[in-house]
């Protein structure tokens, strides 16, 4: 069974049609890059797949859950269980320390806080974020915050990792390292990855590239 199955998905914000009639699938273990010019609907596609946005029309089935039929609370539970999410902006909760931000998915799942925090420390280490774990997000640089967001997306071992411009504020080397970690960790555990990016280097990391244009799929290419 495919990890992601979208068929005939459209989405509008008021009168702005952000996506129209998009169909695609992502298989287990597959890495897909979604690319395209600004405003073409990449983030919208990602948020719909994550169940952050409510399905307006079409059918979205992710990790066995039919999102169109799920209410807000059910989709929240689905995200906790199945999704690792790296958002384009403002990923960290400002009131919580970096460690607790990373531990958040585990905490929400009901893990013991000591365990969740220990796991968070491990992931902070793996993404190479070298700050005091009690630091508040306001005291991080943009790149450091992005590393923390990457750690948070991985901490619960998601079936599907969705990353929106995950390396935009990182230098080339740190960006490549984080991307490697995101992809390898998830794929080795049998999960799938969808990456959204303007950056060709990011797209090159994928098995397949889906190019969007004005809310529709312009073309798909398999990359070696």
């Amino acid at each position: 069974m495919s990890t992601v199955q979208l068929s005939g998905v459209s989405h509008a914000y008021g009168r702005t049609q952000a996506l129209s009639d998009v169909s695609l699938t992502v298989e287990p273990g597959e890495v897909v890059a979604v690319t395209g010019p600004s405003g073409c609907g990449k983030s919208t596609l990602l948020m719909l797949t994550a169940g952050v946005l409510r399905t307006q029309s079409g059918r979205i089935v992710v990790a066995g859950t039919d999102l169109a039929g799920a209410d807000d609370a059910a989709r929240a539970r689905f995200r906790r269980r199945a999704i690792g999410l790296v958002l384009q902006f403002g990923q960290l909760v400002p009131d919580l320390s970096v460690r607790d931000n990373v531990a958040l998915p585990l905490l929400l799942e009901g893990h013991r806080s000591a365990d969740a925090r220990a796991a968070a420390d491990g992931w902070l280490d793996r993404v190479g974020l070298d700050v005091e774990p009690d630091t508040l997000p306001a005291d991080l640089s943009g790149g450091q915050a992005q590393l923390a967001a990457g750690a948070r997306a991985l901490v619960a071992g998601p079936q599907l990792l969705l990353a929106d411009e995950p390396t935009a504020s990182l230098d080339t080397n740190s960006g490549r390292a984080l991307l490697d970690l995101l992809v390898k960790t998830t794929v080795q555990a049998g999960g799938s990855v969808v990456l959204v990016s303007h950056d060709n280097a990011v797209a090159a990391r994928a098995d397949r590239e889906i190019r969007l244009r004005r809310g529709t799929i312009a073309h798909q290419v398999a990359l070696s």
Partner: protein
Amino acid sequence: MKPATLWLLAVPNVRASRTRAALVAMGTAAAGGLVLVTLALFRVPAFALPPRGSTANYSISYDPRYAGIVTSAETRIGVATAVLLVAGTALVLAWQAVSSGSARRHRRDQALTTTGATPGDLRRLGAIETAVAGAVGGLLAGPVYLLLWFVLGPAQPATSRLLPALAPADLIAWACLVPASAALAAAAGARSGTQLHRRPLSGWWWLALAIVALAGMFTLPQLGQGDRQLQVTLMSVAVTLLLLVALACGAPWARGKASRMSRRGRTTDLLAGGGLRALAGPAGRAAGVLLGAGLTTGVATVILGNILRQATDLGSGGHLTGIVLAAVAAGLAALAGLATITLAAVDDLLTNRRGLAAMAAIGADLALLQALQRRRLRAATIAPLVSGLLIGGLGYGALSVAGEPAASTDAWPLLIVGPAALALLLLANAGIVRLLRSRTREAIDPANLRVA
């Protein structure tokens, strides 16, 4: 910066934060009205009670036109202090309103600073924005006073009247109050426009201060043994000091509580701890006010027990008026405290939308976020109210204050009033969470994830 430029910059912000201006005006109006009440209280002809132990006739201090507690020079000081303390809690609320929306103002101030505005300019800008609201509040204080006067002035029977007939002195006081409250609001606005980086005192200092104030509250009145006027004055000073210390200690206490919660194992505690830290200032002020309300209620409850025990006591009529007043004052103060923290929570929901939306995107649903809000409210309010009740009730019961020994059995009404107050508080907390519901829903809208 030229005044015209300042005005130009101030106008859009005043427009954007009409609620802020309205709340500042309301808070100052309430406080101003109560100040006018206090001033009027001192126009009631008062008598000094004969010294304790003297056989002089009680009727010298009896005036059929007013309630006993305002015609006796001693208790009048206590009443005035109580009214002023309620005025103080209204000011706490107004101050919270002044500092609301600070995240947006801070961003604007930064933008202005980078284009060359001096700190002085920013202070003046902040002052202008609130001065108008303060002046409006001062003007509204007149009607507020009139309203209070209609309740307290012509009451029947005459022996429950607390205020004298309206007089030109009221008008003069009001005229002075308007510029005063405008100036006060301007000062508050200017202060909220400056980023203060003071090193906070350590928690132990605050604890020591609180203990000293508390000890003072119970021992100071003992010093005046024999002289009732001195005794009541000292008591008033002690209570005022205690409340000021409680207000000042509130924020460090809330911060300490937040970090204890963050260290705890339960997820709701941990996550709510972060939110409490962000609201430490207003939560602490609300806690201080609730402590005061609890203290007042505790003391009044034990006095009530005392009266009920000596049901035949002739003086109990006057005391009952006092108890009712104390209960009303405590209720109003508690409301102001809760309003303060609600205001801060609304402000937090507005400025913190992105973080909340991110939390929701990761899998926190509305119910969980509401549970966190409830937890945070309880953490900030329950302990202060309960300790206030216990300290006030048991403390007063243990020490004989004002020369009238309270029997240990007088504390029993606490067993009814305490749980009732707690239940009301829990109800209020639930109400606040309900009130915040639609704003919380707006805050977690995925659209908030779009802004950088």
